[in-house]
């Protein structure tokens, strides 16, 4: 067991290194200095407390979106709709955060809960259609992404504001920002959400691995017939899975609404949090802890990438290429495993 985990970490590390190496080669070939490039990347991600804070803030919703995708995956469902669920979660969080005046201890959890519920509802629709009418969740969730985007924009302009492009800020009592974190990280927009996200990963692990519900969800994911034979309500589990997945996504939206941005605005396109969540979930092996690490890697690269054009003149698209290559290497880790096993054999 321990050996297995150790080798997984090793494989992941080698993949990342190979990806970075490939990136370095591309930089060299295109006439950039890879050392400067990566130095700038590191600087941009963890250069000082401010950037560290920003990076952590960026990782936060990625973790939750990854959990959302991963959770559905574990139940045999492909939720491409996390993007839309993030949007409705964000919207709901803003509504809850602006429309009420409550003490922090109630307001903040309430706003997050509302976001989770909104995301859950957005997951419920494809879940229901899948369970009852066998409609493929991939199409429904793709369609619901667009629907969420347009409805959110509409709601912002008509219900939350009077024709404005952005909503008021959420009440202090519903904000995830805290003065000490802001000060500690030199005014970064880091907020308490990272704790929620990591806790979310724990929740996912616990739910799936330690509870009877999780047992049922996993069972349904693997074999619906046997699950039915064992007396599980397969339909309900499918819906439940999408609902929980959507709730994670909704909370990811709350992170943006109550933490990073503190408000919402008319969006001209997707946040991409949901789509990045797919990569994060799969990189993390659809498991809580793995997703936390994958989101960490992903967020770090994305954050650092912004600094590359500025300090090393390297186009930030290069980082997209590096990320893609790392994903390939992790995904194709079969090859790395194979090579490793060769080494181990020879070592014996």
């Amino acid at each position, binding site marked *: 067991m321990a050996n297995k985990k150790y080798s997984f970490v090793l494989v992941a590390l080698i993949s990342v290194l190979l990806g970075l190496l490939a990136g370095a080669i591309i930089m060299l070939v295109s006439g950039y200095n890879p050392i400067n490039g990566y130095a700038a990347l590191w600087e941009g991600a963890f250069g000082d407390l401010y950037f560290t804070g920003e990076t952590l803030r960026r990782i936060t919703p990625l973790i939750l979106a990854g959990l959302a995708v991963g959770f559905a995956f574990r139940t045999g469902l492909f939720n491409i709709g996390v993007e839309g669920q993030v949007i409705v979660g964000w919207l709901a969080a803003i509504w809850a955060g602006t429309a009420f005046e409550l003490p922090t201890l109630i307001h903040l959890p309430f706003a997050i809960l509302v976001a989770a519920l909104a995301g859950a509802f957005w997951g419920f629709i494809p879940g229901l*259609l899948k369970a009852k009418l066998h*409609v493929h969740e991939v199409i429904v969730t793709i369609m619901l992404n667009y629907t969420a985007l347009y409805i959110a924009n509409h709601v912002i302009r008509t219900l939350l504001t009077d024709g404005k492009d952005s909503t008021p800020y959420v009440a202090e009592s519903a904000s995830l920002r805290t003065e000490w974190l802001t000060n500690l990280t030199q005014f970064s927009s880091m907020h308490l959400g990272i704790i929620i996200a990591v806790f979310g990963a724990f929740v996912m692990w616990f739910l799936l691995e330690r509870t009877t519900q999780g047992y049922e969800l996993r069972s349904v994911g693997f074999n619906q017939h046997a699950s039915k034979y064992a007396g599980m309500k397969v339909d309900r589990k499918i819906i439940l899975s999408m609902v929980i997945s959507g709730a994670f996504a909704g909370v990811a939206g709350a992170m943006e609404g109550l933490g990073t941005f503190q408000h919402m605005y008319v969006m001209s396109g997707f946040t991409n949090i949901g789509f990045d969540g797919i990569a994060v979930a799969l990189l993390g092996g659809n498991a809580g802890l793995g997703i936390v690490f994958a989101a960490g890697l992903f967020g770090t690269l994305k954050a650092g990438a912004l600094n590359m054009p500025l300090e090393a003149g390297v186009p930030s698209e290069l980082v997209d290429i590096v990320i893609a290559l790392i994903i*390939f290497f992790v995904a194709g880790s079969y090859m790395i495993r194979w090579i490793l096993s060769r080494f181990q054999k020879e070592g014996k």
Partner: protein
Amino acid sequence: MGFFDILQSIIPAAIFFAAPLIFTALGGVLSERSGVINIGLEGLMVMGAFVGVVFNLTFVDVFGPELTPWVSIFVAAIVSALFATFHAVASITLRADQVVSGVAINFLALGIGLFLVKQWYGKGQTDMVSAPFYRESIWLLSDIPVIGPLLFSKTYWTSWLAVLAAVLVWYMLYKTPFGLRLRSVGEHPMAADTNGINVNKMRYIAVIMSGFLGGLGGAVFALTISLDFSHATISGQGFMALAAMIFGKWHPMGALGAALFFGLAQSLSVVSGGIPLLKEIPQVYLLIAPYVLTILALAGFIGRAESPKALGKPYEKGSR
């Protein structure tokens, strides 16, 4: 506006909208019928659009305005086919999770495309091509009453190429030995293997062909609709193509129909926006209409779609 005028607004617009989706969805059908999930369709389209535009801009003087767009989409398709080998190697040879590999394809295509555009043009998007496709009337067919003007006058040859491609893919999948083998590999690879079919080879071919078609889709989009390449050129069409493929139950004709359905829904919503009666309806309803319509259609009468049985499972000889 008379009824016929409305049709005239809806149908041709639906068709040109659908054409790129048709090509790409057909690519998806081939890949997934062979058992390889392809959510990298978006990336394949990006690659196609990028190559199509860049080639067009670079070689317009060589090939002239008539030929250039054709050569461009062909080259784009070839390059995307090569690009798809990434997905093939990862998901077939290296037995990577096929969804992960597809996601990587999406990132990679956009990364490469934008990176090179910056390198070559010094800016984030290309110029507009000067040799795009133009609408043309198809001889004879455009003279047929009613359907002539709707379908065959002022239409893109590429749209009809898309329809032709659907027929060809259908023929290939369902009438030829190659198609039978390709489908067998997606249903029960071990059975295919015991019948002497090289499972991985078939899958490679299928994924590469899906790259070809996806690239064609992207290039046709770029050369009939956007005319340039930037980060925003392909924004979700690949996922719509994926949806069309599933909507069409992994069948070439189904994919064709689904893509046309999307085009129709979209152009209906556009036309509805121009109908005085509907003016009072908030924009948002028209914006979401195509998507909601799709969901309703699926729930209402399309029903269950069965994916190829071995979809998503790498083939390992003798695994149980």
